[in-house]
């Protein structure tokens, strides 16, 4: 018996197509995965070339798999605030927040970007899990007057240091006034879109949420592609090398239903508001976990041995087990080779006592047992200076028009 290490993926009607499926396909998708029951283009041939394109230029991604759970109705604010660990009273209309939805034991069900479109109008731009079902289950017989459905909306990401130039080409100078993690409505040749200054890269970037996507997605894609050509826009898949460098976690890998915010190192200062007004699901459990301290934590690790791949190229089909003093102590949940650091980097869920910087462990990568050392995470730009850069400068307008920015004002 021999293992086929590279089986094909079946394309057939039962797996959902994102509204951009036929548009991105024309650019030569080389590999799909399935995400929110939907085909997700992972790369177009060479993830490392895609990484450099993101670092130095501007890139376009089909992220139609980020399905939008839309929550509306008179109780939408109170209900959404019950679902998430952050304090939504700190989220203005027109603002976005990276949030956790937790269950009653504090486990993370999803980590979407939340968009607040109105006092009682929210989108949860999902990672990979069935939050429509969870939210409807929570709402059922709860007494909250809310409507929950999957909106006919699909986003693309425009990311990289030259993204502001392309966005300016599409929407004019006003797009530069969108603050980091804010949003604004625009039209694109008659198509209604929401633009947010968010992304999965830790580089400067934007997401364009196309409304009535089942009708408009392909035309919107083509308009963005055309506008990007003079700026060297390249279509790529989500760049996992860059997100691992930048400390951005992936639900289903680094975060699962069985991990809580304090274990993934995002609980203490801003992701969990234990003292916000109103209850939220998981509050009691997280209050206890915070008081006792987590028993395991996600640590950054540099892993020796032969260069690993790019994570989204099939080079890491399963977690790597981690050993210390001959015992199995945890697992590496994401790892890749960083071309600019010239090292293998990744994240390992380890007992707290092994997460001190400089601790040495052994990692079984499937092809060898390599030495690894615990290092601070993220590996690059821990305070996200890059994505918060001055976009007026990047887009070549020199400075703000002085008009009040959309968002922070």
């Amino acid at each position: 018996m021999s293992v086929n290490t590279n089986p094909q993926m079946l394309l057939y009607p039962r797996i959902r197509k994102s509204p951009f499926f036929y548009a991105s396909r024309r650019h030569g998708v080389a590999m799909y995965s399935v995400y929110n029951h939907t085909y997700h283009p992972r790369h177009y041939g060479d993830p490392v070339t895609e990484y450099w394109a993101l670092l130095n230029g501007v890139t376009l991604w089909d992220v139609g798999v980020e399905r939008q759970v839309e929550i509306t109705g008179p109780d939408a604010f109170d209900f959404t605030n019950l679902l998430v660990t952050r304090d939504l009273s700190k989220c203005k209309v027109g603002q976005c927040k990276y949030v956790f939805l937790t269950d009653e034991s504090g486990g993370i069900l999803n980590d979407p970007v939340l968009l607040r479109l109105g006092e009682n109008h929210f989108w949860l731009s999902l990672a990979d899990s069935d939050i429509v079902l969870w939210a409807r289950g929570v709402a059922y017989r709860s007494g909250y007057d809310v409507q929950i459905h999957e909106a006919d909306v699909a986003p693309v990401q425009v990311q990289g240091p030259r993204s502001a130039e392309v966005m300016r080409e599409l929407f004019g100078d006003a797009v530069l006034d969108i603050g980091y993690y804010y949003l604004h409505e625009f039209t694109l040749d008659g198509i209604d879109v929401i633009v947010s200054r968010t992304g999965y890269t830790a580089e400067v970037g934007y997401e364009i949420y196309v409304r009535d996507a089942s009708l408009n997605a392909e035309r919107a894609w083509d308009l963005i592609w055309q506008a990007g050509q003079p700026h060297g826009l390249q279509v790529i898949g989500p760049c996992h090398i860059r997100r691992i460098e930048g400390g951005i976690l992936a639900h289903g890998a680094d975060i699962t239903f069985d991990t809580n915010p304090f274990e993934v190192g995002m609980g203490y200062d801003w992701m969990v508001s234990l003292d916000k007004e109103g209850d939220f699901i998981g509050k009691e459990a997280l209050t206890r976990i915070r008081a006792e301290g987590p028993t395991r934590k996600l640590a950054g690790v540099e892993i020796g041995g032969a260069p690993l791949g790019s994570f989204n190229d099939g080079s890491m089909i399963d977690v790597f087990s981690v050993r210390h003093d001959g015992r199995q102590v945890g697992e590496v949940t994401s790892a890749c080779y960083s071309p600019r650091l010239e090292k293998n980097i990744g994240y390992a869920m380890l007992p707290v006592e092994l997460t001190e910087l400089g601790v040495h462990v052994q990692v079984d990568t499937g092809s060898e047992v390599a030495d690894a050392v615990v290092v601070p995470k993220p590996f690059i730009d821990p305070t996200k200076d890059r994505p918060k850069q001055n976009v007026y400068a990047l887009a070549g307008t020199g400075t703000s028009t002085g008009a009040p920015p959309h968002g922070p004002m």
Partner: protein
Amino acid sequence: MTASRPRDPLKRKDFQPLREPRFEVIPLPGIEDEIDRYLPADSTVTVTASPRRGLAPTVELATRLATRGIHTVPHLAARYISDQAELRGIVHDLDAAGVREVFVVGGDLREPVGEFRSALQLLRAMQSIGHELTVGIAGYPETHPLISDDAIVRALRDKQDYASYIVSQMSFDARVVREWVDQLRHRGINLPVRIGIAGPVGTARLLRVGARVGVGDSLRVLRKHRGMIQHVSGSWTPGRLLDDLAPAFADPSYGLVGLHIYTFNALAQTAQWWYEEGGRRPGHVVEGGPADLTSEE
């Protein structure tokens, strides 16, 4: 569109810490124009607070810069803030201007003007108000004129739950910095550390400032290494210190993540030095990628 190319040869273009530097400025009249004129447009600018003038000039400059899209990190000094109400107002104003990050310190006043004596007290008050700011805190590789070493390490341990990173007070001696970081790591302080270095300025100015912020010991290093002071100009440049720190930057167990450059408002020299050392130029390309990305259409 033409992308300008990095000016070469650049001495230290592979030295990662020079990549995302932060430039610290003092909020004095005219500094805003200097920031526009000399600093790279995508810089992060941190704004100090002075015991004599309080926080008003800091908040004013930070909000102005942030409103114009510049990533700005104001210092909040506990001892200059009178009470919860003032703190609430400051947090609100910063948030409204789009400031996303603050640097919280105790402040150089022997007696606080109000109810906050320490950075830790201020951090706790900020948490009770509720805020969404990323927080940096200060570390002192050398003796602080007002605080004992042990108390400082203890305070860092208490503060680390409220913060995302540490910035070290400037030091001129790589060995002192390394030993200090070692000590932090041994004592369970795992936050990333950004190393504070003095930009290229006149040594007379450095000696004056140094005595005040408690870096006298390592300033003596300056006097000892004749080579480190170009007597011609009587100025200090950080190059040698960066050489000495390079191994620590390369060793992951130190957890060093970049540089924080104290400019003393000498922005023209600082920016010039930084370019020559290998900082990014506008349109800079991250080395190692396909070279054709700089081509113009």
